[in-house]
């Protein structure tokens, strides 16, 4: 297919289409995608690190699959996420504020969510607006909730979305890699370290 729907930072409009319905397909093992175009995984990792180093408020959103120590694999991923966050803090300029905000629950929060300290997939825009987040990584969020959330973010905010997916990748993110393990998260941290100082930080 030659024409491809470009998954770009929004605000797109109230109900952006799902990228799959526009013909975008998921990467194969060893690949990732950037704005919907399939690329080698390493290229996607490098671009993800660049986007994070260029953002004012680069934020990691860990979901229930990694927040809770379901098993050893999950606990290892949580450790890797913490390492990625600490690396990011070491590599950004003083004008940047990296954040680590959990998505502990998928259920809508009544009567209201505290957007300073958590994100909810049913209204992720509130957390993004409140903290002025301009780039984020989803990790450990179940597919359906991630896709729902990524579409809402694209619809109502200008945040750059990255999905580190444990399964086949997320076509509704602006950038995604698949088959994410703890090692892959550590590799992204390596990319951030490697690219430190090579990306123009925000004013």
């Amino acid at each position, binding site marked *: 297919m030659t024409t491809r729907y470009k998954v770009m930072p929004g605000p797109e409009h109230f109900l952006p289409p799902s990228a799959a319905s526009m013909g975008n397909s998921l990467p194969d093992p060893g690949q990732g995608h950037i704005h919907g175009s399939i690329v080698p995984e390493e290229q996607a990792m490098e671009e993800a690190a660049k986007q994070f180093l260029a953002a004012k408020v680069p934020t990691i959103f*860990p979901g229930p699959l*990694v*927040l*809770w*120590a379901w098993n050893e694999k*999950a*606990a290892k991923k*949580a*450790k890797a*996420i*913490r390492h990625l966050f600490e690396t990011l803090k070491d590599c950004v300029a003083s004008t940047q504020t990296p954040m*680590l*905000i*959990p998505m*502990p*629950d998928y*259920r*809508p*929060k*009544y*009567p209201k969510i*505290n957007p300073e*300290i*958590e994100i909810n997939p049913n209204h992720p825009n509130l957390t993004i607006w409140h903290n002025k987040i301009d780039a984020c990584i989803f990790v450990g969020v179940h597919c359906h909730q991630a896709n729902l959330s990524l579409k809402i973010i694209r619809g109502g905010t200008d945040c750059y979305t990255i999905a580190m997916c444990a399964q086949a990748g997320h076509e509704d993110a602006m950038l995604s890699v698949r088959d994410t393990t703890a090692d892959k998260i550590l590799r992204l941290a390596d990319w951030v370290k490697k690219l430190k100082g090579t990306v123009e930080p925000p004013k």
Partner: protein
Amino acid sequence: MSKERIKIAPELFEIMPPEYQDLVDRATYGNETRGWKDIGNAKELIEEHSLCAGCPESMAFRYILASLPNPEDTVMVGSTGCTSLVFPHVAVHNIHSLFGNQNAIASGLKRALSVRFPDRHKDVVVLAGDGATVDIGLDMTLQAWFRQEKFTTICFDNELYANTGGQESGLMQKGFVAKMAPVGKTFEKVRLPEIARESGCHYVVNCTVSKPNLVEKVIKNAIHVAREIGPTYLQLYTPCILEIGKNSMEGLQEMRDSEKPTERFAYKEYVSEPAKELLTEIAAKEKERKAAAKKQLASQGA
């Protein structure tokens, strides 16, 4: 059973909102003697809710959660209505079903859980309003009982459709006029407890939620009987204070008035023969456990 299953990854513990940290630190999971007295101390038993202030459903909900014998291995099935506003605050697995479908969903769920976890007790508890149970979902309610599905059905009977502004329900009293039912109900309150008994339920109780210890007892009985024998049904009066024009403090008195011996929520119970046997057995074991605990305490003190 224990809290082992709800551990937060240590590296991310500190970023979790306080209610999740507290849940892990102070949940009653794994505590064999958990009950309504834990309300107020344990996070999973709902601190905040989004029902009307003073709504008896909010207390009933807490009593039920505190009384589940096996909360880590319980899945609750809800339906649309005021109850569905509370489920997001509940730290027990729950499924929101399409209005009226709750007993069909619970049937499939219970069967699937039995296949998937043959060596573990997995309790399924339906909690829905009277509109969902008796009107729109009556087919699903009855069919599950006919089929002898092994789960508990709890109906929060507030005698109307509260969540949509007060329409007539099958459990509304004859002659009652509600905001969206101005003509007044023309037929009697459906006698669902009797229908439940005739449809094969092994344990049926009709009561109010004015007494927490009583609610705890009937919930535990209903779940144990459903687990071992067959369907059980509880019809709990949780008056909609908003629709009957009472203020926040008056829910309890309304329930006390309605449970007098001649009133429609006078305590009524039906227990089948096999259920009676089971409950006697459980009571004997509980007595033994208490005696052993007392003995141990005495020996520690000596």
